[in-house]
């Protein structure tokens, strides 16, 4: 008994093969490519008792002809690698068609085990099988399974192991006999083929003869003896003369005849119609009038769900990453300039966090797509879209990858595998990046609220998505009429009956694609985040253009002098050190607290010191004035802060009745304070508005200026500045340029970079301060141009990498990169210049 066996899984598309493969191998899978072609090769292992079983999932195929890459690949695998067992997964609710492949496998001579999958459906439809009889007809053990519930797996493996260790019967009688005339020709060819020992050893002489009669190109190419080919050609014309129909069709007829005969004897159907419910649903859904609106409605629903349901988990993840950043930063003393700390907190956690935040959104989208696919609706959607897509020059099947592209381009490009024609496939791959992916959302979320009033925001977002779609249409048409000229592949799409998706199946399908997004985050984006962090942090400037230290000192001195001037207003002696002392104590506390985290003893200690100092001052002569002053100051501050917090927290728009209400409350509070302390009120206001606020503003400006200097000194900054002449026609400046460099690597990085560039510290798309910065630096027109450029220009590195992988050459990936970027540039320049001339949004 062998300790390791190799099993190949074959079956029609839609037969549930992949689900069974996943059930059997779980996470122990490996996905690769068959050499030279972009057909996926999935392998996995499972242990059954003492035996290790290696399972290879062959591509879904309807037969073993040589007309599609998948079929040839499957065939070659079976012949070259001679697996111990082939399991044919059969959709038992559509038996006869599915058995066509089984018959072909038998003809190839492989040891077969049949899995009657979807047996729950078959039972529901009233089919009853005489399994032993069928098993005899097809010379293979039959196991009933329900793939998406994971039922029957053990029995399947039992059958596999039993068949593998059973003695292989010698030259069995052929299953299907093709009638007197054809059989005669087969015999003739077999004797000739027998001479080519190598070939007949590998493939079996009879099989070769049959294939030659069918005109199989692949076999013809492998036969070296021209005599054999000639003989086959003669046979074909002879037979077609006798039978009066194409030979291939006739032979297919015999196969179906055998299957039909076998089924008539072994299958009983108690209910006639398989498609009853599906028919009724279809008459509505594929209806010429209602089909499209229903489809659009469903699409809208899908997007609504992903955005709204995704919110809470997104916020949760954001908070988690923020906390993580805080914790990690806590390992270093506060304010530390450690490079490692910066790398970890700003670079890694900030960068990667920005990607992971979108995971809920993306997973929900993939879940929705999985529901549509598993239930069978997708096929109808492709059918409905085909007419439209055809007009653009795309294939109806392009629709699904494009839909996936709204989540992430990487799984979308992989999904183009279902397109048979290379032309269709390449065109679709090249335009998929225009389906605005999830990574671009933070860019829009940052910019739109910063520049556009509430009422315009949702329409703006829609507009961006729509522009992407329209551009894709235009570009696709362009590509199809130039580079990829030619007929689109014929549209053949099987419409499986509607079925209720299982939770298990949905989760598997959702995760298959979601995992790719995560992997992208974990690898490429991580590297890029680190790279960008390095580019923006280094080289560090040591000597600055402005002497920041002494300027800061001067500002502080001016502040304190201004405070001293207030002495007169409060009827204190001119040289009184009360106010100045109190303010000084507060500044000292602030300085000390910079160096400690809130929990540390030093933090509380600094506050205690300040309190002691102020208490001492309060006890001295005229100390009560100080106390009143401070009390009022805090009161006014609180009224103002409460107002701004309420506005920001609830997102109250200026000019709305709510806003007026909050302002009124604030003003009332202020009036009450004034009434209670009429003499001191005015000086305190003066302090707040003319001394303290300018003081803080000046310090902030100083800090920003310093950071900007640092940034422009760094590599990224220099690149941005160097690019400025190119960016100008679009209305961009070097800062945007720096952010775009980061965005090239991964779109999510754009927002983080903008935060760095405007030195707002940690920025995300919710950052009010970043939004304020942006709206004060740029016009709405420029903002729109930024979004436009980001939408169209080069997709992220991960997309380019996957394009290269799926298309098989760098040529297409680079075309995608270059073409989209150039288009983006031209378009943005046009929009900006036109907007400027027309005076829109400037």
């Amino acid at each position, binding site marked *: 008994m062998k300790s390791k066996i190799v099993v190949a899984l074959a079956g029609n598309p839609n037969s549930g093969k992949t689900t069974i493969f996943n059930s059997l191998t779980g996470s122990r899978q490996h996905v690769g490519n068959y050499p030279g072609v972009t057909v996926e090769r999935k392998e996995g292992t499972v242990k059954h008792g003492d035996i290790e079983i290696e399972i290879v999932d062959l591509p879904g195929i*309807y*037969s073993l*002809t040589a*007309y599609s890459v998948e079929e040839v690949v499957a065939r070659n695998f079976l012949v070259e690698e001679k697996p111990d067992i082939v399991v044919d997964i059969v959709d038992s*609710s*559509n*038996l*006869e*068609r599915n058995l*066509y*492949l089984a018959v072909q496998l038998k003809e190839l001579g492989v040891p077969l085990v049949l899995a009657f999958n979807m047996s729950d459906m078959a039972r529901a439809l009233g089919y009853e099988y005489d399994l032993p009889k069928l098993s005899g007809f097809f010379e293979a053990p039959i196991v009933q399974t329900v793939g998406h519930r994971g039922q029957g797996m053990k029995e399947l493996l039992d059958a596999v192991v039993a068949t593998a260790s059973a003695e292989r019967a010698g030259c069995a009688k052929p299953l299907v006999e093709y009638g007197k005339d054809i059989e005669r020709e087969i015999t003739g060819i077999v004797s000739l083929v027998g001479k080519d020992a190598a070939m007949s050893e590998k493939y079996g002489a009879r099989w070769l003869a049959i294939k030659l009669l*069918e*005109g199989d190109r692949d076999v013809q190419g492998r036969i070296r003896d021209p005599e054999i080919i000639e003989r086959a050609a003669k046979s074909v014309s002879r037979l077609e003369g006798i039978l009066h*129909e*194409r030979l*291939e*069709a*006739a032979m*297919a*007829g015999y196969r*179906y005849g055998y299957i039909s005969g076998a089924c008539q004897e072994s299958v009983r159907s108690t209910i006639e119609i*398989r*498609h009853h419910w*599906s*028919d009724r649903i*279809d008459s509505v859904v*594929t209806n*010429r009038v209602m089909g499209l609106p229903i489809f659009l409605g469903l699409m809208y629903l899908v997007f609504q769900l992903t955005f709204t349901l995704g919110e809470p988990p997104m916020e949760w993840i954001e908070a988690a990453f923020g906390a993580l950043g805080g914790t990690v930063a806590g390992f270093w003393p506060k304010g530390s300039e450690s490079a490692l700390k910066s790398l970890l907190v700003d670079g890694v956690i900030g960068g990667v966090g920005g990607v992971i935040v979108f995971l809920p959104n993306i997973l929900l989208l993939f879940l929705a797509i999985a529901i549509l696919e598993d239930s069978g609706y997708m*096929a109808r959607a492709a*059918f*409905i879209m*085909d*007419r439209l897509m055809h007009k653009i020059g795309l294939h*109806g099947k392009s629709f699904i990858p494009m839909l996936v592209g709204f989540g992430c381009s990487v799984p979308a490009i992989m999904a183009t595998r279902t397109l048979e024609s290379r032309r269709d496939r390449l065109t679709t791959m090249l335009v998929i990046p225009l389906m605005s992916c999830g990574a671009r959302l933070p860019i829009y979320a940052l910019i739109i609220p910063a520049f556009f009033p509430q009422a315009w925001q949702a329409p703006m977002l829609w507009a961006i998505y729509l522009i992407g779609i329209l551009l894709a249409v235009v570009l696709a048409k362009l590509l199809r009429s130039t580079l990829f000229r030619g007929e689109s592949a*014929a*549209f*053949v*799409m*099987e*419409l*499986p*009956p509607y079925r209720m998706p299982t939770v298990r199946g949905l989760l598997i399908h959702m995760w298959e694609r979601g995992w790719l997004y995560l992997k992208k985050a974990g690898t490429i984006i991580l590297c890029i985040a680190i790279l960008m962090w390095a580019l923006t942090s280094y080289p560090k400037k040591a000597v600055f253009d402005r002497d920041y230290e002494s300027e800061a000192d001067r500002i502080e001195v001016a502040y304190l002098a201004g405070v001293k001037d207030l002495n007169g207003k409060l009827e204190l002696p001119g040289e009184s050190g009360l106010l100045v002392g109190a303010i000084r104590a507060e500044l000292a506390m602030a300085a000390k607290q910079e160096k400690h985290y809130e929990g540390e003893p030093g933090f509380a200690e600094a506050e205690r010191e300040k309190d002691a100092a102020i208490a001492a001052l309060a006890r001295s002569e005229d100390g009560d004035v100080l106390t009143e002053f401070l009390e009022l100051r805090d009161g006014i501050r609180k009224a103002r802060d409460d107002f701004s917090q309420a506005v920001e927290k609830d997102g109250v728009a200026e000019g709305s009745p709510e806003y007026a209400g909050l302002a009124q409350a604030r003003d009332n509070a202020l009036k009450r304070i004034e009434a209670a302390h009429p003499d001191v009120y005015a000086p305190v206001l003066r302090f707040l508005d003319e001394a303290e606020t300018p003081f803080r503003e000046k310090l902030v400006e100083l800090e920003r200026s310093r950071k900007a200097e640092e940034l422009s000194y760094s590599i990224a900054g220099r690149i941005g500045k160097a690019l400025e002449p190119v960016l100008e026609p679009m209305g961009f400046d070097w800062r945007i340029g720096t952010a775009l460099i980061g965005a090239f690597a991964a779109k999510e990085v754009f927002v983080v970079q903008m935060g760095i560039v405007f030195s707002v510290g940690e920025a995300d798309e919710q950052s009010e301060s970043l939004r304020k910065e942006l709206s004060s630096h740029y016009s709405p027109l420029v903002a729109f141009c930024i979004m436009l450029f980001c939408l169209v220009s080069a997709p992220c590195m991960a997309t380019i990498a996957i394009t290269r992988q799926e298309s098989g050459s760098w040529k297409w990936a680079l075309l995608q990169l270059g073409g989209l970027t150039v288009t983006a540039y031209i378009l943005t320049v046009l929009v900006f210049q036109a907007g400027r001339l027309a005076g829109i949004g400037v």
Partner: protein
Amino acid sequence: MSLTDVKTGKRVRFVAVDGGHALQGRLAALGLVPGAEIQVFQNEGRGPVILSVGCSRMALGRGMADKILVI
């Protein structure tokens, strides 16, 4: 007549397809062999034709359906 001439709801039998090897092989694998019974489920306007063969339901592009001969 060609498949595209068949009205929605009618049943016909497959005769042959006016096309090359590839098309034939493909259709055969899907069950479209001489004598196979086809029921046309939807044939409107200029979009694909939906039909059922045996227990399978499928949609075929108009171009392809045009080439299929039935009686």
